[in-house]
Structure formats: structure tokens, C-alpha cells
């Protein structure tokens, strides 16, 4: 569902047209003013490393839900996703359809146990939970390393995407767009840490939901309802509205598998469970988050299908590239103010993703890796702020100078997180028979298989058959490795669980 790598690719290919007009700039300036205001407020409340990395375990239910929706969706839902539907038809919906089960699945599998681990031990990161579960600094370090590798790609593609959007709104050029967006995000990330990120996400998520709903209503209204839109498409391209669209069934089902199962390993979503103020508030979290996601994803579906119908009946000119679906609709059909709102929503999506990844990366560098080597930073807050600056600058430099390589870096983020973290974290926290050896081997398998297959595929050493992806293969292999090695080393299983962790796993 959320693939910031895909966002980057979408925005890279879209090369958004410039919409730098007074109304659009005014909305853009208003947007950045609110961001800065929230950041100043949050920076005054950030005093410890716990405040910086997990908002002091003190975020309320509604704020955390909206922030989580904001981080989950990212700009792919606004640009790349509708473009993908326009290009391949309904099959692209299988990237977002798992949202119907992923939030509640995450709640059952991870939310309670991770939140209680935070309660019992004050844990702050996803590798913290893996380290605590297996009493293993090596597992904590290796999972931290995997996250860091994945974050490089995510950060670079999102930094580039941010530059593209800011250039479209303000007309400042791509390079300045990258640095302007990164500077604003960096400022609030350094000053207010995840606290600033969360409350900015609340604002940004609300903006996305409003923009998505308005666009959905507008398209249904202009298109004469979904039935009329479907009829228009069916007269010329019936395959578009077949369940797999123009893709193969294997490819489409593979989307569902990777984006559903993989959601349990996405650190930007999973580590938010630590932040909820009261664990008992988890009761309403999946319901609220699922409804929020459905609302935000209305745009994904309606723009993809609506633009196809509008191009078919001649109301819109044919697109130069599929990723022009959203920009072209906004510039040709919708009122300018709505277009400005949606573009601000895209900027919001990319900035919230960047902030979240900066924070997670900084936690790995200053917290998880030192622990893996048996050390602990004396002032994690100061080191966290320093690492935030370094990671952000590095990502902006990669985004600006690595050319097409940045797209490659973005591709494997989701799959890497899924294959390295799902078995050890999601299965491991719910199965006492999982062993340290099983966890270490599965994380290593996910890391090696994803990197080697993606690299081989990128450099065209070989081509996957239609429907098979490196992410899917790596996820399946790491799951099977985890079960097999845990079974082989099962005699050591019970010894690798501390009493407090066992209590939490039993609940």
C-alpha cells in the first residue's frame, strides 16, 4: 500500500507541470506557515530522548491515528497510484486493497505487545523490541542495519519527490525544491523530533483527507456518477475494469501479499504503537485508522478511473505519461484552489514520510547500533539531533546527485523492511518457539536476498517472470527460513525469553 519508493518513481516520471500562480503560492505559503508554527510549539516540549524518538509515550488516540494515516499513505496515493491505475487498470487497486485488513491485523499481531514492551521497559525503536524478544544485541543491531539500508532509499526518493512538488508549487527549480523542502522538514525534525512530526502529521493527514474527499466528490459529480464513468470506459477498454486490469493474476495477487503481509514490518507504522499514551486506547485505533485510510485513498481510485473516462470521452487530452493523471486532472478539470489544496497534500505526504524516516534512522544510529556494540550514547537527545542533520543532508545529496540510481534505491525499501522484520518481529513476538538463531537467519536472509535480487534485476543480469518480484521472493524465503531454523534450534527457544517479555507474549 504505502511504497515511498513508488512515490519517488511516480514523481520522478511525472515531472509535475509548474502551477506557480498567486492562489497556489498563497495556499503553499499558508501550509508552510502552519508547519513552522507547530514545529516551534513542539520544540519547546522536547526535552529528553524519549520525547524526541517516541514523543514520551504520550500521544492521544486521535492524534496518533491521523498521524499514522498520514505517514502510511505518502505521496504515492496522490500521484504514482492514480497514474498506475490509469496505465494498467483496476489491478493497481490491489496495492491499496490490503488496507481493509492490515490495520487491524497490525493491532492484533503487534500493537498490544509492542505498547506493553514500551510500558515495561521503556523501549523506543523496532530493533529494541527484537533485541528484547530474543535477548540478543546481535538481532537488535542486524535489524537496525536493515532498517538503515532501507531508509537510505526511502529518504532519497522522498527528498526528490519533495523537490519535484515544491518546484511545481513555487517554481524554484528542482535543486532548490529539494533543499527547501528538506530544510523545513529538517528544522522541525531537529527541533521537535517525532513530537513535531506527529502534530505536523496530524495537520498534514487532515489536509490529505480533505483534499482526497473533495476530489472524489468532484470527479463523481463531473463524471455523472461511477456507473456513467464505468460505462464510458467499458465501451472502449473493457479490460481496464477487469479485476486484474492489464496485469496478470499472479502479479496482482502478489501485490496483495507483499503489501498486506509486508505492512507488519514497516517501521514508520509499527514504531508508532510505542507512542500511544494509554495502552487501553488501542481499542479504537484500528477502526479509526482504517476509516481514515479509506477516506484518503478515495483519491487514488477516483482519479485513476475518472481520468481514464475523461480522456476516453475527450474531456481531457491524452496523457503524455500515466503519472500525469493527477496533475493533468487538477490543471484541466478541477478549480485552481482545489488543485492547490491537493498539491499541498502531496507536499504534506512527502514531508511527513521524510520526517518519519529521519527520526527512525537517527534512532538506529544513536541508539540501536551503539547498543549492538555494547555501548550507549551518554546524551541520546543531542546525538539524535546530530544524526538527524547528517541523515537529512545525506539523503538530499543522494537525491540531487545520484540520477536514475535514486529510483533504484527507492524500489526495495518496502520489500527490505518486510523481509527482514516480519518474521522476527511479527511472528516472533507471538510465538515462544521462535529462536534467536531463527531471527538472525531470517533477517540476514531478507537483507541478502532483497539486495542481491534487486541489484541483479536493476542491472538486468536476469529478468523476473511476470508477477514475481524480489520483494515477494525475499519475504517468502525469510519466513520459511525463520520457521525452519527456529524448528531446528527449538531446544534453545525457552531460554531466549525474559520473564517480563514472556508475560507480555502470553497476554
Amino acid at each position, binding site marked *: 500500500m504505502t511504497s515511498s519508493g513508488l512515490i519517488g518513481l511516480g514523481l520522478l516520471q511525472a515531472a509535475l507541470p509548474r502551477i506557480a500562480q498567486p492562489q497556489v503560492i498563497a495556499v503553499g505559503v499558508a501550509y508552510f506557515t502552519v508547519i513552522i508554527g507547530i514545529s516551534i510549539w513542539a520544540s519547546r516540549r522536547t526535552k529528553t530522548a524519549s520525547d524526541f524518538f517516541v514523543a514520551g509515550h504520550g500521544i492521544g488516540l486521535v492524534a496518533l491515528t491521523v498521524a499514522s494515516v498520514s505517514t502510511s499513505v505518502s505521496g504515492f496515493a496522490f500521484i504514482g497510484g492514480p497514474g498506475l491505475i490509469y496505465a494498467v487498470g483496476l489491478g493497481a487497486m490491489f496495492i491499496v486493497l490490503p488496507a481493509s485488513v492490515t490495520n487491524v491485523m497490525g493491532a492484533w499481531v503487534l500493537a498490544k505487545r509492542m505498547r506493553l514492551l514500551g510500558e*515495561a521497559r521503556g523501549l523506543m525503536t523496532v530493533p529494541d523490541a527484537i533485541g528484547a524478544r530474543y535477548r540478543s544485541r546481535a538481532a537488535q543491531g542486524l535489524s537496525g542495519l536493515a532498517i538503515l539500508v532501507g531508509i537510505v532509499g526511502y529518504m532519497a526518493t522522498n527528498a526528490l519527490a519533495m523537490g519535484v512538488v515544491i518546484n511545481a508549487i513555487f517554481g524554484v527549480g528542482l535543486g532548490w525544491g529539494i533543499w527547501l523542502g528538506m530544510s523545513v522538514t529538517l528544522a522541525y525534525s531537529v527541533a521537535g523530533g517525532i513530537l513535531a512530526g506527529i502534530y505536523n502529521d496530524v495537520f498534514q493527514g487532515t489536509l490529505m483527507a480533505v483534499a482526497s474527499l473533495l476530489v472524489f466528490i468532484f470527479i463523481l459529480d463531473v463524471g455523472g456518477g*461511477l456507473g456513467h464513468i464505468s460505462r464510458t470506459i467499458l465501451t472502449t477498454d*473493457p479490460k481496464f475494469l477487469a*479485476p486484474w486490469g492489464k496485469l496478470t493474476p*499472479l502479479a496482482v495477487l502478489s501485490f496483495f501479499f507483499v503489501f498486506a503481509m509486508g505492512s507488519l514490518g514497516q517501521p514508520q507504522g509499527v514504531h508508532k504503537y510505542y507512542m500511544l499514551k494509554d495502552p*487501553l486506547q488501542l481499542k479504537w485505533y484500528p477502526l479509526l485508522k482504517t476509516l481514515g485510510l479509506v477516506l484518503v485513498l478515495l483519491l487514488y481510485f477516483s482519479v485513476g478511473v475518472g481520468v481514464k473516462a475523461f480522456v476516453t470521452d475527450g474531456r481531457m487530452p491524452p496523457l503524455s505519461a500515466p503519472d500525469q493523471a493527477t496533475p493533468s486532472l487538477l490543471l484541466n478539470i478541477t478549480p485552481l484552489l482545489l488543485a492547490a489544496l491537493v498539491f499541498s497534500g502531496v507536499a504534506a505526504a512527502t514531508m511527513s514520510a521524510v520526517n518519519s524516516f529521519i527520526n527512525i534512522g537517527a534512532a538506529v544510529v544513536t541508539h540501536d547500533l551503539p547498543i549492538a556494540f555494547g555501548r550507549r550514547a551518554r546524551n541520546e537527545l543531542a546525538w539524535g539531533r546530530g544524526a538527524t542533520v547528517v541523515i537529512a543532508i545525506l539523503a538530499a545529496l543522494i537525491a540531487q546527485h545520484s540520477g536514475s540510481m535514486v529510483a533504484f534505491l527507492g524500489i526495495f525499501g518496502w520489500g527490505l523492511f518486510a523481509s527482514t522484520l516480519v518474521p522476527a518481529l511479527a511472528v516472533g513476538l507471538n510465538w*515462544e518457539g521462535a529462536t534467536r538463531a531463527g531471527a538472525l537467519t531470517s533477517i540476514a536472509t531478507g537483507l541478502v536476498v532483497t539486495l542481491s535480487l534487486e541489484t541483479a534485476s536493476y542491472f538486468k543480469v536476469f529478468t523476473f*517472470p511476470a508477477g514475481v518480484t524480489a520483494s515477494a521472493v525475499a519475504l517468502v524465503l525469510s*519466513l520459511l527460513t525463520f520457521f525452519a531454523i527456529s524448528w531446528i534450534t527449538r531446544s534453545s527457544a525457552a531460554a531466549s525469553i525474559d520473564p517480563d517479555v514472556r508475560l507480555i507474549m502470553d*497476554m
Partner: protein
Amino acid sequence: MIVRTNITKKVARLTITVATCAIAVGYAAAFMRGGTPSWAPWLLAFGIPGALGGIMVLGAARERGGVGALALPFAFVIVTLTVGFCLALGLPSNEGANSTLWLGLPLRAAIVVYGIGLLPVVVLPVAYALTFRTQTLTAEDVERVRQMGRLRVAQAEAEGSRSSNEEAGSL
């Protein structure tokens, strides 16, 4: 120490393993010389709901007792996903200008969007909320964990002061 077995969790783990193997075979079949065989997507159509259902049950089952009242919503979602995928695969592809529309979409598209994409939304999060106290978490659970945390901190402090006393003694 012996790892305790819980039959619900054991079945869930077995289901995840078998479902993952089915998915693996589906992918492996795509590498066959004649191209992806027609049965390969069916393995995913059964494997995906199995794997997702299995991991949900694994997460929801408490050590003492199974999934309780959640058995029904879990069964509903697994069946919904399986039937949805199978209908999409098995029904004839006859979308055209004269297709009957169901809530604005041709039949197979409606099954996918409304059946797979929306039906679980109506059932699962509501089931989670309604069974939260009996199946997921109570205030007593939270208090037990907090007590365990306090005990752990006290033990760590005691060990710390003991070792610093020993160090002082040895000096």
C-alpha cells in the same frame, strides 16, 4: 525449560507455514519454461488468506484460551478473501459495454473493490473493538506489566548497587 504449546497458536503457525509454502510454489511455477501455469495464481488465492488469517489468529490468541468470540470474524474474513480471489479468477471475463453494473462496477470488479476492499473494513475493526476487553487487553493486564517493569528496575538497581559495593570492597 519446555516451550508450552497452545493448540490454537500451533494450528495458526502450521497454517502460515503451509500457506507460505503454497505461495512459494506459485512463484516457483512462474519460472517454468512454458510460462506461468494457470494453476499458479490459485495457490496464491488460497495461500494469501491462509497466511493473513493465520497470523491474525496467532496474534489474537492468548496463551490460556484460543481466539474466543473472534473465531467468527476471522472465519468470515478468510472466507471473504478466498471467495473474492477465487471468483475473480474463476468467473468468465465478460466485461463489456453492456455489462450489468453492481454499485457502478462490472461484477468481478465489484467483487474485488467492495468485497475484498470494503467488507473486511465493516467487520474486523468492529470485532476488535467489541472484544477488546475479553480478548486483547484489560486494565489489570496493563497493571501486571507495569508491576513487572517496576520489579525489573528494582532488581537492576539492586544488582547495580551490589556490584558497586563489591567493587568498593575489592578496592
